[in-house]
């Protein structure tokens, strides 16, 4: 354990505030980074982590607050300016130039030259020397893109540190690395820490947080929840800080329904994909709601995308009605009468430019094929029926769907699949980012669909919510299905302790 408190304060953020139209992304956030410290920055979606980093590196202007580096007040104009001030950032998707050589990437803009000509040999020698300090013995003349993401990340780190970075921000650097790559990255981080560099480490993997961080700061909904040395922060407390709930004294759980019995409608055996989600078993019966719970990045969305054929499984087998089926594309899944409302409504769900009517009939039309156009009158009838049934608030069905509120967009996406009369619906965060009224309506709708005999798989970060409507809950951690809760075990508390256990 490092005695971090005795080290000098390297980066001091006080009262940082940043608003966007309609939302306060950062609300008087304080953050302190010491030299020679690895500081985990954690929080669920929308907590404000990315905004904090972007304000710090000059991508966004702050509305209020101060940032001090080594006691000097600074304001970065843009990421290049931030780097020259001593704040380097390495993103999950490496933002270097894959078509240039490793050496050129390391020295771009500051190539050694003589008589106006770049001294390539000298540059390569220095690049190789620099990287050997990171345990990388690679041919620096090769293009950056020819190396693995892990190597590219180390190169990005080397570049940032070499450009006199005092503070190194790593934004989810491990998201696409395998275990061994993560291990070597951590070795490098520990080396940099020993050199007195302050490291901000953004990740969703709790095991990694505990493996490498000295201190943890948790944000939620743009506010600072707390900042503690790792030794004083048990897992359960960290999870409860992130999710914003305390362990309740009495376990709240759903009105007990008799367990759904019968043959599963859909079943997945040893179903998985390397680097995406560990192989899992999962079965859902008609009239049953199975919840997927876990922190962001735990593999919930990945499970949904694998099941719906957005990603292709590389192990295991899927079954519908007990018969083996192949699901290689969403089209295959839709043909099996699956439906899927994705978490990212804007980029994966709605077609913003098209009307509500067109969005609602899209999946049904795709199933019927291009030759069998649903007559215009029938389209309007379907759209209006669902607008009424789901209470989608819009003056008419011809309005572009992009102009609706989030809750109404979500209802229209549900309508898109309900119009196809699905047997199995996958709902990824159906209540995220929508107002309270619509929220309750969608939960009632989920319960109604379940009573109608649909099989439902629902992903949600709201533990109370997921415990209230699920017959069973699968808990995920670090891209694995770790435990399945059923019957009386289904409660927000059990889910939380399962997430936090290891």
């Amino acid at each position, binding site marked *: 354990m490092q005695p971090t408190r005795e080290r000098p304060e390297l980066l001091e953020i006080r009262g940082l505030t940043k608003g966007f139209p309609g939302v306060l992304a950062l609300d008087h956030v304080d953050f302190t980074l010491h030299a020679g410290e690895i500081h985990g920055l954690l929080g669920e979606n929308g907590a404000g982590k990315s905004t904090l980093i972007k304000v710090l590196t000059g991508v966004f202007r702050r509305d209020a607050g101060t940032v001090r580096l080594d006691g000097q007040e600074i304001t970065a104009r843009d990421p290049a300016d931030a780097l020259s001030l001593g704040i380097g950032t390495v993103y999950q998707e490496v933002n270097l130039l894959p078509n240039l050589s490793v050496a050129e990437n390391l020295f771009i803009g500051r190539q050694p030259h003589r008589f106006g000509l770049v001294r390539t040999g000298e540059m390569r020698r220095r690049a190789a020397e620099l990287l050997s300090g990171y345990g990388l013995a690679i041919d620096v003349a090769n293009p950056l893109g020819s190396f693995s993401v892990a190597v590219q990340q180390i190169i990005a780190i080397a570049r940032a540190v070499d450009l006199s970075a005092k503070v190194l921000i790593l934004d989810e650097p491990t998201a696409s690395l395998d275990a061994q790559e993560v291990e070597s990255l951590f070795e490098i981080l520990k080396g940099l820490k020993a050199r007195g560099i302050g490291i901000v480490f953004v990740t969703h993997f709790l095991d990694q947080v505990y493996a490498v961080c000295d201190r943890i700061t948790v944000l939620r909904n743009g506010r600072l929840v707390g900042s503690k040395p790792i030794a004083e922060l048990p897992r359960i407390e960290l999870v409860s800080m992130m999710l914003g709930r305390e362990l309740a004294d009495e376990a709240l759980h759903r009105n007990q329904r008799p367990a759904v019995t019968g043959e599963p409608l859909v079943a997945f055996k040893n179903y998985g994909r390397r680097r995406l989600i560990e192989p899992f078993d999962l079965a859902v019966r008609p009239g049953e709601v199975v919840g997927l719970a876990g922190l962001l990045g735990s593999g919930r969305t990945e499970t949904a995308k694998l099941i719906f054929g957005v990603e292709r499984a590389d192990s295991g087998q899927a079954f519908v009605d007990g018969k083996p089926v192949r699901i290689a*594309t*969403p*089209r295959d899944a839709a043909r099996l009468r699956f439906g899927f409302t994705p978490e990212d409504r804007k980029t994966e769900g709605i*077609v913003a430019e098209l009307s509500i009517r*067109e969005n609602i009939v*899209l*999946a049904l039309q795709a199933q019927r094929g*291009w*030759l069998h156009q649903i007559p215009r009158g029938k389209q309007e009838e379907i759209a209006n029926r669902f607008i009424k049934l789901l209470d989608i608030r819009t003056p*008419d069905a011809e309005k572009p769907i992009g102009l609706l509120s989030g809750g109404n967009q979500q209802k229209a996406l549900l309508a898109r699949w309900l119009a196809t009369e699905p047997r199995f619906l996958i709902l990824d965060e159906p209540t995220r980012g929508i107002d309270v009224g619509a929220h309750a309506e969608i939960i009632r709708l989920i319960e109604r669909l379940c009573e109608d005999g649909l099989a439902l798989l629902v992903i949600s970060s709201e533990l109370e919510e997921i415990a209230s409507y699920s017959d069973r809950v699968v808990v995920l951690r670090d891209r694995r299905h770790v435990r399945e809760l059923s019957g009386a075990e289904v409660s927000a508390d059990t889910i939380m302790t399962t997430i936090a256990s290891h």
Partner: protein
Amino acid sequence: MSSVIQASAPRTLPKGLPQVAALLIVFLVNWLVFRDFFALRLQDGRLFGSLIDVLNRGAPVAILALGMTLVIATRGIDLSVGAVMAIAGATAAALTAEGYPLPVALAAAAGVGLACGLWNGILVAVLEIQPFVATLILMVAGRGFAQLITEGQIITFVSDGFAAIGSGSFLMLPMAVMIALVMLLITHLVVRYTALGLFIEAIGANVRSSAYAGVGTKAVTIAVYMWCSLCAAIAGLIVTADIRGADANNAGLWLELDAILAVVVGGTSLFGGRFSLVLAVIGALIIQAMNTGILLSGYPPEYNLIVKAIVVLAVLLAQSPVLTAVRAVLRRKA
């Protein structure tokens, strides 16, 4: 259809107004420099006059614009249409010169066109190469293929049937105009009376959401590139029939740019989504009317390019979302 669109976007100009207005203004200017612009006369059962000339000369680009509209609506682009015109023209001319019957020559040209489109479509949809680069390959190589077919010569042929495609007439209108009208009608029916139009607009506006909804995005994209190349082959036949010979070097040269311009002037965004076939055809006519107007005015044709650029700029400015927003702000302040 159009009334619905107007109802959903009451704050913007009625759809198509800038294009129709631009066409009328160009016609008006043509009339000012050449008072006989609107004069029509009937001779040998066919109409003649400057206006007919605009339609006739504009037909190949209008046909190209039909296919290009669909490609651009999927958020793609097809730079190879000029080269495909040359290939199709060379194929038909070579077969005709060797004595094959007309239907064989035409079918071969159409088949070659569809094959070119299949190639483009596979590069774009299956291999996921950026459309600009994917079609650039055929733009460059296609002219080479055409030259191989013609063996570097201009192949001339004697076939009244083939020549009629370029210079014949039907119902008093030049054959090329009739072909363009028929192609407009067929394309319209195919996209608006099946679900293809919806799929094309959905793919262009958000390909990911469309795929997640179960739309066969790859198949639709390939079909669209094939249709575009078929249109190019037909335009190539018209040009070839017109000069009764296949010139692999010059047939359709730079016409891909006119076709793209026609589509953009017609209001279809290069970012894909909503499209209008009729307005793209009007866009093609605007371009041709300007070409004709400059010829009639007696100005050197060099002015053509500059005037064209100015008119295109004006139409695009009228559609610019930024300027629309600025106008709205000014109105609020006033």
